[in-house]
């Protein structure tokens, strides 16, 4: 009889990185199908090319540097998928290839791989693409939620990820229910966005887009790039809301506002985190 002796704990909750990643991928895959309904099969082509490029880049890097292959954890697939959802369906197919390479090679692996990224790779790649080929990656239409059915499927959207708010809301609530993402950032982001928009006097039908929900449930609560302290996540959520409305108010584009918001919020996340380190409850103040 061989017995294992190890440190506690001897059981685990059963939530794994793989489960978190693939649940997000499943939600976004459904969203991609909806985008194919709106934009036609070329939307799926963008998604497939982007995912494939991200996976191949990761495989190549890990083969070259003789690391263990980590395609199975789903991070590369998720990066490719999220990045594709930020693009318009008419984009030339070489752009997502370059973007996926930039995201996986330069934003993810150059900084140390999974868990060490400073910026959300998909967002950083989108910023890179937008800076380099702004006219090629710009969208032709800005969504406007004029009826309630637009929340389910929005035919006026310009980018793949905005076609259905409802899928993202259901998926996001599922992620929160399963504790795959934290509830603080999504809740605070949504509340502060609405409060800011009402304060400024903006029409909510322009503020609340599919991209906002993508930001709320997938982009902003990305674990690696958001603060880990509880207070920090509150502040992060509020900051995201404020930035979104300010950027959107000044540029009249609440879709791009979400993406730049997450990019800038990522940049200040370490600063927020550093200033909100908690105090142990059992420490006696001197």
């Amino acid at each position: 009889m061989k017995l294992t002796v190890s440190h506690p704990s001897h059981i685990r909750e059963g939530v794994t990185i793989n489960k978190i990643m693939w649940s997000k991928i499943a939600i976004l895959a459904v969203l991609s199908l909806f985008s194919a309904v709106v934009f036609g099969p070329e939307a799926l082509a963008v998604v497939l090319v982007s995912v494939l490029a991200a996976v191949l880049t990761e495989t190549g890097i890990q083969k070259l540097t003789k690391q263990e292959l980590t395609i199975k954890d789903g991070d590369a697939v998720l990066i490719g998928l999220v990045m594709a959802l930020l693009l318009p369906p008419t984009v030339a197919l070489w752009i997502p290839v370059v973007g996926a390479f930039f995201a996986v090679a330069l934003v993810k692996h150059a900084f140390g791989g999974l868990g060490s990224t400073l910026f959300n790779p998909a967002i950083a790649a989108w910023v890179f693409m937008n800076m380099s080929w702004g006219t090629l990656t710009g969208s032709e239409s800005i969504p406007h939620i004029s009826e309630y059915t637009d929340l389910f499927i929005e035919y006026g959207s310009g980018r793949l990820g905005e076609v259905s708010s409802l899928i993202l809301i259901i998926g996001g609530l599922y992620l929160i229910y399963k504790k795959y993402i934290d509830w603080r950032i999504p809740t605070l982001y949504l509340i502060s966005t609405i409060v800011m928009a009402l304060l400024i006097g903006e029409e909510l039908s322009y503020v609340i887009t599919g991209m906002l929900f993508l930001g709320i449930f997938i982009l902003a609560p990305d674990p690696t790039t958001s603060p880990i302290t509880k207070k920090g996540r509150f502040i992060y959520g509020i900051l995201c809301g404020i930035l979104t409305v300010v950027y959107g108010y000044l540029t009249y584009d609440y879709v791009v506002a979400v993406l730049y918001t997450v990019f800038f919020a990522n940049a200040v996340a370490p600063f927020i985190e550093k200033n909100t380190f908690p105090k142990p409850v059992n420490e006696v103040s001197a």
Partner: protein
Amino acid sequence: MTTEEVKKETPKKKKEPGKQVVIPLLQHIGITCKPLVKVKDEVLIGQKIGESSDGLCAPVHSSIAGHVVAIEERLHPLCGKIPSIVIESDESNRAIELKANNNPSKEDIINAVQEAGIVDVTGYPLYDMLTTYNRIDTVLINLTFPGDVNSNCAPENIPKIIEGMRLLMKGSGALDGAFIIHKYNQSLLSKIKSELRDENVEIITAKNNYSPIMTNLLAHEITGIPVPNTQTPLDVGVILSSASGALAVTRAVNDGIPSIEVNVTVSGAVRNPGTLRVNIGTSFKEVIQSSGGYSGEPGKIIMNGSLNGTAQPNDEVPVIKSTTEIIVQSTDEVLRESPGPCIHCARCVDVCPVNILPGRIASFSDMGMYDECFKLHVISCIECGKCNYACPSNRHIIQLIKFAKAELVKLLTIPDEEATPSPGCQSCENPCLLGEPFISGGIA
């Protein structure tokens, strides 16, 4: 360890005493007892066979009648190898005379608790709690640790637990008492409520399960006064005991029976999981055989809880006074995943009961940056194991935190000849697993 795991009480069986018992001379936090018997001596049930007057110590008693075969170092479930008295049974069941006392005075209670060598599930001798120089105003009995509740809160024990509370209040001079019960454990709540007559004793419902390692935190939540790891609940005027402690007190004071038996719940990969009444010193193997034996190949044997219990090197280790639970994991259940990178998901931060950043500390500890761990309050960690349980990346958070603490002790201890030694255990050189919060202080 959710409350759903709190099983229904199974009818209690008495395990037949085995042929041989191994009684460790250290079953508590403190110093090792000196043997009072020699090899080949005759001993009776309940006879005192080990004691020391040099410091914090709870005497040990023989749990069977027979003769001493050996006094040697044997495996201990918590502390590696410890001098132990091996007794072989002569199957006569001769016992010492019991001194029953149904109307004890305060001194009688303290003497009886000391003589009986009662040790709480935390490993702390109960008589030391009663004789503390702190003014005690509250006695709390923690009924939220599933292992303890499953073993000791059978319906026939409830009046004894309530009597134990009364005796502890009388012995310590406390005016108030309270039972802490998990809010979902309604059956236990109603049972205690129907039996409780004393109006000074309240029932407090808690939202969490508090394992023995979390006693300081529980005392903090009840009293509102923070109890750091360098202190015990005694420092805030609270005696915090458990169902097993209260039962043992009743038995010792009213019936004069020393601490020679414990209730142990056997669960996991055994044929008939359930609660057994076991003599102290019985090997885990015999206890598991009385529960029907292993079902399948055992992979890990854990004492006292899956979250922060101790995995045993083999099944020959004896049951000691603080044993409440034996969990057998089959080979498939044993965790074998290698740790992945930290993705900063902050799940460990969300579950941490002392509000520190366990994952970040573990990462710094992994890199050898112990000064950063210190800045992040690694000393405040109570090692409850919840972060480890929640980690999606299979990181060994608790192990890394314990390692950082040990390294910090090395870094921060200034050798000083005249300094008074800490009151901790001095029986072995290994890092102590017996209630580490009590002795890991001295540097904070």
